[in-house]
């Protein structure tokens, strides 16, 4: 009895001296504080590294700048672009790390693009859409007479949201022309858009039930984008002609989605049966055990 008592006492003493020893080191050792700051304060513990500050934002939120430009960063923070980490310089060029040269044309800075040049400004990234737009009556009008809707007319500029069919609406279209043609295009798009949304939802459900849908996600996105691009030609007949083709492509995805749902149902039934076998085993073994008592 005495032996184990002594041993416990020794261990306790050992542990306490360890704590004191290491605490002393932690106070005297300066270098590790930087490591701590680096690893614990700046390391991403939770939120994704969205772009919060750079020179552009710094200046555009300060008092130095005209109030109408001061709204831009907060507008942008609400946008789809911000969500996907597309920053000022990705569209406007310039250097977000160098305050001196941030707006220098040498660093590719483009301020506010002219109304006529907006399509190319956005088209730096949205190549496919630009192509279709330029073919459209909208694009032709802009390029020939310098008047006509550009990207910003419908999508806005800094607070750009995920595009949806709701953008085609009477208020927006009637700013320039009657709504009839737009309405008939919208009617044509509606069914296919609805189907696309349904498949997106199904794929999401499949993912949440542990089916990996990466390949079909990509095929659907590709189909969706091509369909959207088609709309940018604002050509009713073209949209109508090719809707069939798109619904066939979508149906092909739907067939695979259905197969996956059947597979999931099978899985649940299979493991459900195994579960019932074990319920049975639990009961019989319990009864057998009780009997032998």
């Amino acid at each position, binding site marked *: 009895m005495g032996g184990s008592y002594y041993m416990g006492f020794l261990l306790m003493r050992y542990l306490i001296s360890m704590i004191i020893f290491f605490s002393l080191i932690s106070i005297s050792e300066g270098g590790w504080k930087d490591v701590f700051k680096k690893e614990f304060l700046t390391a991403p513990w939770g939120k994704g590294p969205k772009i919060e500050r750079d020179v552009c934002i710094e200046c555009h939120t300060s008092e130095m700048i005209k109030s109408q430009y001061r709204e831009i960063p907060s507008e942008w923070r609400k946008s789809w672009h911000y969500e996907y980490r597309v920053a000022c310089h990705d569209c406007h060029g310039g250097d977000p790390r160098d305050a001196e040269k941030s707006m220098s044309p040498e660093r590719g800075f483009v301020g506010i693009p002219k109304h006529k040049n907006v399509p190319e400004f956005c088209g*730096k990234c949205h190549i496919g859409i630009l192509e279709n737009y330029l073919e459209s009556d909208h694009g032709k009008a802009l390029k020939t007479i310098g008047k006509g809707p550009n990207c910003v007319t419908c999508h806005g500029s800094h607070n750009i949201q995920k595009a949806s069919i709701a953008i085609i609406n009477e208020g927006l279209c009637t700013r320039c022309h009657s709504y009839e043609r737009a309405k008939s295009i919208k009617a044509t798009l509606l069914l296919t858009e609805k189907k696309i949304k349904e498949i997106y939802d199904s794929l999401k459900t499949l993912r949440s039930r542990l089916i990996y849908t990466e390949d079909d996600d990509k095929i659907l996105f590709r189909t969706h984008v091509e369909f959207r*691009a088609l709309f940018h030609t604002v050509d009713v007949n073209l949209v109508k002609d090719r809707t069939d083709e798109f619904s066939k492509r979508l149906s092909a995805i739907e067939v695979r989605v259905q197969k996956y749902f059947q597979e999931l149902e099978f899985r649940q039934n299979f493991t459900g049966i195994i579960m019932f076998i074990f319920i049975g085993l639990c009961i019989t073994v319990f009864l057998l055990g009780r009997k032998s008592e």
Partner: protein
Amino acid sequence: MKRRRFLKLLTSILGVSALSAFTYPILRFLTPLKAKGKGESIIIAKREIPIEGAKDLVIGGVPAVLINRKDKGYIILSKVCTHLGCLVKYDKEKLLLICPCHAGSFDLEGNVVSGPPPKSLEKFQFRIEGDNVRIG
């Protein structure tokens, strides 16, 4: 004692069915997977593609492109952009593969040059047999 024998019988029946419920999946699990697109091989004549020319293909359901590179020979790359899955286009002037959706661009090895794609384009294997390029 009759009840006891019945219970024992029931336990062994359930035990055997539990065991077989695992044996069958194990056997299925170990049977070899069917190779994708086995037996379908694509043959393309070399003269169809001039130097710096390209030809679109579909390999096992995946859209791909065969490019005859200057000095470096043939390469087959998947056209599916690694970002969100749009189909990249071969740009003969810039010698790049460019995605129409978000301007991701890849060199003719399939490596990312610029834009949002997270990784290189997938490569496909092929063999050169005389005057032909054979895939699969």
